[in-house]
């Protein structure tokens, strides 16, 4: 192969794979410091000065300031218990042990982390206002249509993310793959 076409081929492959890898890893918020616990994704170091380059790039692309670790820890669910991508048209059940924290909140967001419902509608639950079952555990139903009990509207958007934020929690520094987290099961789909 002659030099010029070869060089062009090299440059094309380099640009495509390099930028493609970046778009893929940053777009899906998957860097070296991110790990999955069931349906939840967590990047514990994102809120510290030791945040890895992927976490920094994700924050910059979203235009947000990550939750500082001494403040709290954010867990993002992009799939259900069974590994299927979250769909705003389906109904999901959030249930089970939330790690010890002074307060926690569960909010619904779209694929771009923008709110899924209009202002005035419920965007999330705080640990203070959630009604608990007899076992003390919180059960929240995430659904496009109103449900009895703790109903978190999901707006019917096809791409859905659920964000569980734990405030003032020791789990922020100790979280690992074995940490018990709430389950997120699919109840029904239209």
């Amino acid at each position, binding site marked *: 192969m002659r030099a010029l076409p070869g060089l062009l081929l090299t440059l094309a*492959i380099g640009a495509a794979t*390099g930028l493609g890898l970046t778009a893929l890893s940053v777009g899906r918020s998957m860097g070296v410091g991110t790990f999955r616990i069931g349906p939840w994704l967590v990047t514990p170091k994102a809120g510290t000065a030791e945040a890895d380059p992927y976490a*920094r790039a994700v924050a910059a692309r979203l235009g*947000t300031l*990550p939750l500082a670790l001494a403040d709290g820890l954010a867990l993002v669910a992009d799939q259900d218990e069974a590994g299927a991508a979250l769909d705003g048209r389906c109904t999901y059940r959030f249930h089970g042990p939330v790690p010890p924290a*002074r307060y926690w909140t569960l909010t619904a*967001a779209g694929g771009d982390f923008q709110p899924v419902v209009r202002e005035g509608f419920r*965007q999330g639950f*705080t640990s203070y206002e959630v009604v608990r079952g007899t076992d003390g555990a919180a059960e929240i139903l995430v659904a496009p249509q109103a449900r009895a009990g703790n109903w978190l509207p999901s707006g019917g958007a096809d791409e859905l993310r659920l964000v569980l934020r734990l405030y003032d929690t020791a789990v922020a520094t100790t979280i690992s793959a074995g940490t018990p987290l709430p389950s997120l099961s699919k109840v029904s789909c239209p």
Partner: protein
Amino acid sequence: MTDLSPRRLAGIGRERFARVLGILPWVLAGLLLGVAVHIVSVFALPRLAPDDARARLSEVATVNRLTTLSGRASVVLPLADPAFETAVCRFDLTSGPLHVRAPVTPHYTAIALYTSTGLAFGAINDRAATRRVLDLFVVTQAQRREITTDEDETAADNLILVSPTTEGFVLIRALAVQPSVAPLVRDQLASQALCEILTPEMAPPTE
């Protein structure tokens, strides 16, 4: 010219093989270049992203002054918790240390500090408060050396945090546990929270 003898076919095969072998180094070089491009672009993103927190906040907040983002927090900063009332302060420490004050709201208040590229370098919450307010001083490395307190520093009850950069952001966030208390928390934040540069005479009080 349709000579399809086995020998001829083998010749074509060898030719193809040689051509593929010729491309291979260029492909490998391309993949190596790809890895380099990936690493460089990930590192460059925080500096190059046009719509990052710095850009979003410079539109709404003035330097060294506190701005309350009543209800707009999740619009200005995606992924901000809608249950929180937020006040933001862009700081520039060139003219002196920064004094940050947050009221202790009924449920939960936190002050978080970020560099201008959005790296969290410190945070405290109301658990650290001994009074009805949470006071914090943000200084540069050089300013830290200048603050020579005669007395025991812990007795002064002042929290001093060293900022790795001269510019950055302070977020004061207060939880409204249910929508009905949001106006109350918002008012408390607007009337009692503070973000100001200290003049030399006003150096961190030591008592």
